[in-house]
């Protein structure tokens, strides 16, 4: 039989190359994940939010799935950590890939994003200091990053929280971070962010609820610290106050008291604000919740956790007009923490919804 192309010969190398090309052509295309058209959060409870934990989430589909489930639960707000240390190189270069991914997917799901910015890159802190060490020499760099962040996500970012729980020495890398220190940080960051994006809100505080007395190496009572922030002139340098409040073993409606840590401690925070003539500033509760771990002494039963959570939202809606949103810590972790922290979540790392998720979904009218 006559060959159709008698002069066409393939050497072994060419055959191998051809084979590789064919294999490459027939391999499945990579998973295409796109944010998709912008969705709307359907909710009868616009106060409901969640603190997501997507910083450590590598796979894009999981980021998308998490945020989709937040929307389906009827929560219009997310709070998320965006660590300065992870993105910003000393030469000014910023790796935007991951924050872009989170912000774009959140925006596509119709969610309002409150970005908590913190953690200091190695080049901006002294050698042998921990990741959350921050001193005044790096305030300008921090402010520059916050401003660039705010500028980049115009129209997709509701607010920025400056730092986290500054009344704890841990959050300063175990240096003493006084209220004056933190106020100076706000004074540096606020004008920079506003110049870059006037629409984004700057939230101060996010103080840790604690009863630590003055002089403690660990921190300072949040009410006292807030008072000192006002005395230091912080009021003009935040648009809203971020507050953390945990119920621990108390019911949601338990009366607040200066020597007790419970959900309604927010009312004592508000009193401090009123004492300093700051009634117009809204509160954003960026962390709250109950825990139902069977081994943690500060935990409650799972059913109590559900009831307390629903009671808290209802109480806040009815009694706290000065509270804009309340975010549950935490929606989901990328992997088990292997501690009681796992029992703060609404969804498992495998995306299995816990009963509290279903109850909240019903609560927001999304059954």
């Amino acid at each position: 039989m006559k060959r159709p192309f008698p002069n066409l010969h393939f050497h072994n190398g060419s055959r191998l190359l051809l084979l590789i090309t064919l294999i490459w052509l027939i391999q499945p295309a990579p998973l295409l994940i796109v944010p998709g058209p912008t969705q709307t959060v359907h909710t009868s409870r616009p106060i409901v939010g969640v603190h997501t934990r997507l910083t450590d989430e590598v796979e894009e589909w999981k980021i998308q799935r998490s945020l989709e489930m937040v929307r389906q639960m009827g929560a219009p707000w997310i709070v998320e950590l965006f660590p300065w240390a992870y993105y910003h190189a000393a030469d000014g270069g910023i790796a935007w890939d991951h924050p872009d991914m989170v912000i774009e997917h959140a925006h596509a799901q119709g969610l309002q994003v409150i970005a908590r910015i913190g953690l200091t890159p190695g080049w901006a802190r002294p050698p042998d200091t921990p990741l959350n060490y921050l001193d005044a020499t790096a305030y300008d760099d921090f402010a520059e990053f916050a401003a660039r962040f705010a500028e980049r996500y115009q129209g997709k970012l509701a607010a920025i929280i400056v730092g986290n729980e500054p009344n704890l020495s841990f959050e300063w890398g175990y240096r003493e971070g006084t209220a004056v220190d933190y106020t100076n940080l706000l004074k540096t960051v606020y004008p920079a962010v506003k110049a870059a994006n006037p629409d984004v809100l700057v939230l101060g505080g996010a103080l840790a609820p604690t009863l630590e007395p003055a002089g403690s190496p660990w921190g300072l009572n949040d009410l006292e610290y807030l008072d000192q922030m006002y005395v230091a002139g912080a009021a003009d340098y935040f648009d809203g106050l971020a507050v953390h409040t945990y119920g621990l073993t108390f019911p949601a409606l338990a009366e607040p008291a200066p020597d007790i840590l419970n959900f309604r401690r927010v009312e004592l925070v508000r009193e401090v604000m009123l004492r300093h003539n700051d009634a117009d500033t809204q509160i954003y509760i960026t962390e709250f919740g109950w825990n139902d771990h069977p081994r943690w002494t500060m935990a409650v039963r799972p059913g109590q956790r559900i009831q307390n959570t629903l009671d808290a939202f209802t109480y806040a809606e009815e009694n706290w007009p000065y509270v804009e949103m309340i975010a549950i810590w935490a929606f989901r972790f990328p992997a088990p923490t292997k501690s009681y922290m796992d029992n703060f979540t609404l969804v498992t790392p495998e995306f299995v919804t816990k009963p509290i998720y279903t109850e909240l979904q019903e609560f927001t009218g999304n059954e």
Partner: protein
Amino acid sequence: MSKFGSKLQVAGCKSPWLKDTCQLPHATCTPRRIGFGSLSNYAKSSLWFIAILGMMVWLTSCTTADDSWERVQAAGVLRVGLDPTYPPFEVDDGSGVYGLDVDLAQAIAADLGVDVQFVYFGYDGLYDALATEQVDVLISALVIMVERTRDFSYSEPYFNAGEILIVPADNSIIETMADLSGKTVAVELGSLGHVEATEWAKRVVDLAIVTFPTADEAITAVQQNDADAALVDAVNGRLYLRNHDDLKRLPESVTVEPFALVVRSEDEQLLDVLNQSLATLQQSGQLDQIEANWLGP
């Protein structure tokens, strides 16, 4: 270098290349010249193959020095870490520590001929305490976690705390979750039993779930004919059954949540000894007796 680095030095090994590839504290090598000159190429290749294969087998059978059990023996005491806030496994109410895990630790220590010393830690600090060698073993109702096995080793399980089905004592119809079609199961609101029942409801036709604030109330619903079965964790379920003989638990556990002893991953010798001791206690019936003492039959 890690603090264990010195244990990984090669001692007594005269073959220089082995120093880089073999981490054998007790390895001894006796290099021997092998004359291949008179053999055919095929025979030479075969011999090389066999030699390399033999070397690989030898290398993979190597173990690092592990004197973890000898250390315990020398000290004469087994240091047990626990968080004494979890009845009925370990509690210290001011009168001393007691509970199932305490009895188990004492039985193991007696079997091994050493004393036992209990060291308290908060739940979240247990593994750190073990990693930093403050204790030899954790016996604190700890569930086997695959994610931890890089740094820690678990013994054979000594108790399954998973979800169990509780039904009326005269029940002969319900044997598994699959038999709950058209029936009602009671659970504690928000519990793992609730999550599990919700998953089963996707596959079992007409499985109704009723929730209660506590596991005890879910079980009571079965007694009062408000539910056909209760799905609760083994600890709460068995504690309830101790005083209610009109109910029984089904022998097959619906989920598995195995409690085990924990040691550092390099302490294989100690792990072997503890496993042998658990097996001895199992065979003698002592383990069952300890469990029955605290959780009922």
